[in-house]
């Protein structure tokens, strides 16, 4: 008999601690599958950010450095410059990358650092308890926007994948979702492309993955999943915003 499906070797054989219906586990798996396919596990150094994604090292069987809140792109810069032969990725949430870490991500992208950034956007601060994020949708209620995000007061949700695609140093920028089999297959394809850019030394690659947060959204897993496909995909359009080499 031929085995046609198995756990990626880059993932550890452990139970997830993420809330039911959260997409982190799925995104972890896609990233690990890409690692396996490119055979980079043994030379990978991951950069963990804060919040739910910090536990990266509990799931990925790769070396990991933990960064302060928002600074993962700067930490990854130091790692990659010191060890250019390594495969370096960061894994950051929206509060991390699109709020406190905007300077770091924009400048790492602009320098064209040869790293891959996995940006998990669930429109809220997950582990901190569901506060308003820079990506919180207009009208969305959170624990710090109890009347709903007010665009005239709080600004509009930031579209990071589009914003970064404007920078010369960015080789690849795409937004994906894992809420449906179709989107998941496409997400896998785009994550692989992002990896390929780094494997070929072609510069900064960025994947924004829309993710659910049932616990903080106050929705059950199915409803949360469906919100990703409707409200979120409506504002955060899926697609490739920059692809310098058409890999």
């Amino acid at each position, binding site marked *: 008999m031929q085995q046609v499906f198995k756990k990626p070797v880059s993932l550890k054989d452990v139970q997830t601690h993420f809330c039911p219906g959260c997409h982190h586990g799925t995104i972890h798996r896609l990233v690990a599958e890409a690692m396996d396919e490119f055979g980079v*596990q*043994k*030379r*990978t*150094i991951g*950069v*963990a950010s804060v919040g739910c994604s*910090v536990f990266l*090292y509990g799931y990925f*069987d*790769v*070396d*990991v*450095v*933990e*960064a*302060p809140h928002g*600074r993962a792109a*700067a*930490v*990854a*810069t*130091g*790692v*990659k*410059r*010191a*060890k250019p*032969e*390594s*495969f370096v990725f960061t894994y950051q949430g929206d509060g991390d990358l699109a709020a406190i870490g905007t*300077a*770091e991500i*924009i*400048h790492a992208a602009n*320098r064209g650092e040869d790293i891959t950034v996995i940006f998990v956007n669930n429109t809220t601060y997950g582990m901190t308890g569901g506060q308003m994020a820079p990506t919180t949708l207009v009208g969305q209620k959170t624990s710090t926007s109890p009347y709903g995000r007010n665009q005239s007061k709080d600004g509009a949700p930031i579209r990071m994948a589009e914003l970064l695609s404007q920078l010369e140093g960015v080789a690849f920028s795409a937004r994906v979702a894992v809420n449906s089999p179709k989107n998941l297959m496409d997400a896998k394809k785009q994550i692989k492309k992002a990896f390929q850019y780094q494997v070929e030394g072609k510069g900064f690659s960025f994947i924004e993955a829309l993710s659910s947060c049932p616990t903080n959204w106050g929705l059950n897993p199915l409803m949360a999943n469906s919100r990703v496909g409707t409200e979120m995909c409506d504002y955060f359009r899926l697609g490739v915003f920059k692809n310098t080499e058409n890999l």
Partner: protein
Amino acid sequence: MAKRLFVKGNEAVAMAAIEAGCRYYFGYPITPQSDIPEYLSRELPKLGGEFIQAESEIASINMLLGASATGVRAMTSSSSPGISLKQEGISYMAGSELPGVIVNISRSGPGLGGIDASQADYFQSVKGGGHGGYHIVVLAPASVQEMYDLTMLAFDLADIYRMPAMVLGDSVVGQMKEALVANRRPETKLPPKDWAVRGKGDGEQRVVKSLFLGDGELEAHNWRLHAKYQELKERETRWEEFETADAQLLVTAFGSTARIVKTAVLMARDAGLKVGLLRPVTLFPFPEKALLQATQQCKKVLDIELNTGQMVEDVRLSVARDAEVYFYGRPPGAGSLPTPEELFEQIRKYY
């Protein structure tokens, strides 16, 4: 024999970093330390190293964190307001037990303050600066030669104890030029960096982190850090004594201020006053025992600093109860360096 050079203190720091094997520098311009990034931006690429002018001090300390985590020797430098921004990363490096050298060519504050010399960063340097209760090695050079020698030492201590090390100079020692013998890197036995991330290869996963959520894990981590600080106090305390053998009044001062004090001590000796200087070279670990010993016979201590009184607290904590500790200081402000005559007057006053 090593060449005798005539260089600026800041250049001596950069030269020492290269001699110490540092090939990675991450920084952001700020007066009065910009000679350091300027020198390294020119020299590191020639040596196959990397110089990055980061977008901020915060980014540069975190680049240092990332590079240090891979096991290479790396450095950042800044001046007071920039060091404030770096404190977040310094706390994380201390928590993650990462080596790395941070140079502070301090200037006056608080806030934007001014660009003249000040010693008002003593508290920030030796008492933590960032959150969480930690220490870093703090070395206080008083000459261009020491800017060189202590920078090299900072790299070794950082590696041996797996913690950040700071060279705390100021705009006087950073900007002045004097003779330097650029010694070769001393042979030092360094522990293997078997903790550094490198891509796991066929080995075990390595994680560099400061988050410890397991039951009792963080407490154990903090006790271990504490033990390391105690070990540093035992083994790595450094200080200079000048005319202390028969001193009736002991002056304490660090860094560039100690040089002015030396002249004042000589003036006092000429006037027949038995005065000596004890200059802490390591501000952390602080030479507590040396001070206690020096004050066994000499019951008067005058602490002199270019601030309104910071190190004096550590001096008080170090000496026996029956030693009187006086303080004379000047807060930072343009042109406010004390003259030897001014300090001699203070010595005479408390003698």
